[in-house]
């Protein structure tokens, strides 16, 4: 493992384990190696920033951690589950129960209100409608957007949209939050607010967060910074 640990405050049991993970794509006859024999351990409660030049494989790695894609080889264990051995439908169910995604462009459903967007992951649970409402209200209040519950995404600012997205990622209480450039589309001040929110979630709720970012100031909010280059951790 060649992780460059900047901040070693993370203590806790192992949540994620990557054992010699490789990922390649086929472009016609050519094989493009995107991730090369990656080894990595992430502990519960960590806030990890993943940095590196464009094309170095950050998003690809994040997609593997989130069960959106499968590694070409290697072992990927999260919370004791072997993701590399799961079928697509097993992965789908696993995602519903274990991960929250936060995207650069928020990816809210434009035809649903903030509240309904946040409720989406709960539709995959057995919660009753009343219970769902309670969880949604709690998540919205956590991100400070209770007042905007019935607003549609196009009635919200970028920062507010991202807060809704964070509430959506949190609402089903997943083991890990995965963020791909969560502040990439926001101005400095708004970005800082979002980063502070993520930091609070990490510190107060103990959420494990992996965040891909290009921005060193964003990375400063994390406990651990990892750098990637050409499909390797450096």
């Amino acid at each position, binding site marked *: 493992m060649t992780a460059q640990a900047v901040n070693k405050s993370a203590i806790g049991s192992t949540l994620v384990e990557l054992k010699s993970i490789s990922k390649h794509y086929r472009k016609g006859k050519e094989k493009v190696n995107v991730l090369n024999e990656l080894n990595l351990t992430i502990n519960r409660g960590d806030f990890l920033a993943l940095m590196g030049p464009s094309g170095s494989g950050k998003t690809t790695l994040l997609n593997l951690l989130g069960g959106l*894609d499968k590694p070409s080889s290697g072992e990927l264990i999260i919370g004791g589950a072997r993701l590399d051995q799961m079928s697509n439908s097993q992965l*789908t169910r696993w995602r519903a129960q274990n991960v929250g995604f936060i995207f650069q462009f928020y990816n809210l*459903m434009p035809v649903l209100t903030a509240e309904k967007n946040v409720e989406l992951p709960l539709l*995959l649970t057995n919660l009753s409608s009343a219970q769902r409402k309670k969880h949604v209200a709690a998540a919205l209040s956590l991100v400070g957007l209770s007042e905007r519950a019935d607003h549609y995404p196009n009635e919200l600012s970028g920062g507010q949209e991202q807060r809704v997205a964070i509430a959506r990622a949190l609402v089903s209480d997943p083991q890990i939050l995965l963020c791909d450039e969560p502040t990439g589309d926001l101005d400095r001040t708004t970005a800082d607010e979002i980063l502070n929110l993520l930091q609070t979630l990490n510190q107060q709720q103990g959420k494990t967060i992996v965040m891909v970012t290009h921005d060193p100031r964003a990375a400063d909010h994390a406990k651990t910074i990892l750098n990637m280059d050409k499909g390797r951790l450096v």
Partner: protein
Amino acid sequence: MSSSFLQIPIISWMNIKNIPQRLGTSSVAVFGVACVVGVFIGVLSMATGFQRTMLKGGAEDVAIIMRSGATSEMASGLGYAQAQEISHLPGIVRDGEEPVSSPELYVVVDVTKRTTNTSANVPLRGVLSAAFTVRKNLKIVEGRTFTPGTNELVVGRAVQRQFAQLNVGDKIKFGSTEWTVVGAFEADGGLAESELWCDAKVLQEVYRRGNSFQTIRVKLDGADGMQKLKTGLASNPTFNFSAQLESDYLAEQSKPLTLFIKTIGWPVAILMAIGAIFGAINTMYTSVSTRTREIATLRAIGFGSLPVAISTLVESILLSLIGGVIGAVIVYLLFNGYTVSTLNFSSFSQVVFDFAVTKDLIVQGIWFAVIIGFIGGFFPAIRAANLPIATALREV
């Protein structure tokens, strides 16, 4: 998977709410299906209307007696003596001493169609007073009936509306003989309304038929009347006549044209449906591709591929359904009750009938739309279900 029940409605709802943003392509699918269902119902309503008129004219307690082998009234013929003998066979209702039996002549005459201003074959039936007894639903609704022995006509309501010079008081010439229209009759919208009636004796004279007729209609006496009549006809070796129920006869007469309309209508409808299916497929592929990021996000959150597929089908079927309803409503407003007259192959004469956009046809048309929507949405649904999530999320 209990959660599918929640997933399908919410994704479908989102798809549907999204439609206004894809109004252009969505309306292509709707329009296509509307056309198909419109043509489908339109053509079949013609067949249905024609058949309805034909069948309405046929009673189940009236037998029509024609020369064996004659497939239409025009091809039949029988002398006066034979007519008398047949009328006294068993199985026929009697009114006092007299059997309820109506010997009739049937010829066609040229009359000018109002809509096209061209002439067409209209049946002219020569009858005696019994004709009015045999047909119980026939009513003179304007003027009076003809006076026996004169060149007077009463005309069916339907033929009167579609053809020129048939108003009460009009004089009309067939060949060298001039006739005066003295009345109009209705027959519950049945086939008789497509006919002109006159005194059989006068028609015999004008057409130099001596004392012969072409057919006899008789009122059957009870459930076994037909059997008795048939036995009677068979028992006399000099008879070469056969009897059938008027309803059966008219059903038979309606078959060739109905079949013709349907054999043209179905292939046209199916060809158009194939076009509409391609329209729907295209629309739904567009729908899936514009929703790529949305679908990928839902899948990332943990929504299943099956609910995503089903909701795509739901959208496709809904669009088709809208198209189907629009098509059906337009055809109903445009065509239902629209009166036309056309040549019935079987009798070589015009039948006036209304297009009948029935409930059955509308239901069939709507089902047709649903099938188009299902087929059109099928492959796009599979594509939506198999969307590679990681790749789709990269597309901004």
